[in-house]
């Protein structure tokens, strides 16, 4: 059986156009890079300061001054650019990032993402997520459809929002959904699932 994370990452990768500038969140979203062809001319931004992030470096070749936004060692592809935090978030907030892919705790029926804290439980901080959701041209949420069988796509979320701006696409291992002014639309059902299953696993109304 295919891993849910792989299914999600592969499907998100199909959304990435050649020659674009893409920011992948840490964790599941970072797997998307594995499914983008090398000749696509896609540049990945790590918001801590590089455009043109590459894969993990060979053992022993790591540079402590070249890491991703999670602090992990990376490489830089030919044509990479090193930037400071002001420039990095200038690109993000200024609409220069074509696509950002972020993980999610919950998404509400209006397509608004919550992914940075669970009051009373987990307060990691928003890092760059609020700027990314507010500023990137296209925001894709990549997350499992449920958390221990509890829907993560809900009518209303009790969690603090990451941004008032609705995301553009939600990709789970079960489905692809898009927020619209009339609510969430079910665009695709993943192979091995059916629409009824998706609806049962979802806490918000889905139109076709």
């Amino acid at each position: 059986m295919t891993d849910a994370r792989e299914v999600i990452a592969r499907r998100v990768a199909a959304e990435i156009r050649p020659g674009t500038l893409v920011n992948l969140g840490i964790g599941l979203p970072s797997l998307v890079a594995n499914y983008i062809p090398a000749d696509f001319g896609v540049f990945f931004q790590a918001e801590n300061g590089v455009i043109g992030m590459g894969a993990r470096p060979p053992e022993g070749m790591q540079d402590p001054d070249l890491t991703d936004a999670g602090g992990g060692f990376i490489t830089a592809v030919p044509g990479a650019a090193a930037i400071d935090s002001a420039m990095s978030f200038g690109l993000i907030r200024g609409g220069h990032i074509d696509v950002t892919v972020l993980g999610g705790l919950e998404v509400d029926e209006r397509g608004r993402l919550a992914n940075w804290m669970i009051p009373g439980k987990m307060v990691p901080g928003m890092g760059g997520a609020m700027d990314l959701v507010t500023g990137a041209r296209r925001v894709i949420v990549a997350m499992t459809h449920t958390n221990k069988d509890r829907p993560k796509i809900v009518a209303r979320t009790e969690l603090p929002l990451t941004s008032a701006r609705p995301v553009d696409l939600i990709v789970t291992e079960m489905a692809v959904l898009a927020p619209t002014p009339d609510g969430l639309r079910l665009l695709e059902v993943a192979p091995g699932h059916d629409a009824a299953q998706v609806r049962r696993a979802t806490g918000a109304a889905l139109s076709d």
Partner: protein
Amino acid sequence: MKQAIRATELAALVPDGATVMIGGFMGVGSPERLIDALVTCGRRGLTVIANDSAVPGVGVGKLVTAGAVVRLVASHIGLNPETQARMNAGEIAVELVPQGTLVERIRAAGVGLGGVLTPTGLGTPVEDGKPVIEVEGRRYLLETPLRADVALIAARRADYVGNLEYFLTAQNFNPVMAMAAKLVIAEPEHIVPVGVIPPDAVRTPGALVDHVLGRAT
């Protein structure tokens, strides 16, 4: 020409209760020797402005562990459980700021602007208590400038007049913080003669730097 200082001189420059900006991102591009010096001299009551508190034993994480920090302004503390524990125990007041807002608030102070008008944080808890200004039909949060008494800056190289050069992702908050503090102390990995860093490679002009930490002896 700057005088190189020793780590032991830092105590006299950073008093208890000071507001200190510290460069770095998850410990990358952090002035580790200057941080160690603050721990060694037993500093207390610091307000630290930094992107994150790294992990225990690294960068700002060392100051958290040492109990030197009473207030932390940062965008992320999720990878340091000690920061979370001390926050929950009421020992550290944490102000969480979106990363792009954090760097612009620091920049605003450094470049003499009165604040930042950003869409980031609207409709979230970040908006609470802040003025919303409408410009050309769109709404923006007004975020205030962030200043510090001291900025501790990590650089790849400094020259004798204090020009700083950074390397890859170790740049992050360092050049912006070097503009926003009354006193700027740089910790370079290498100190080179004037002229070795060409004018176009300088990201922090020496005029912004008050002291350069000498090489470890």
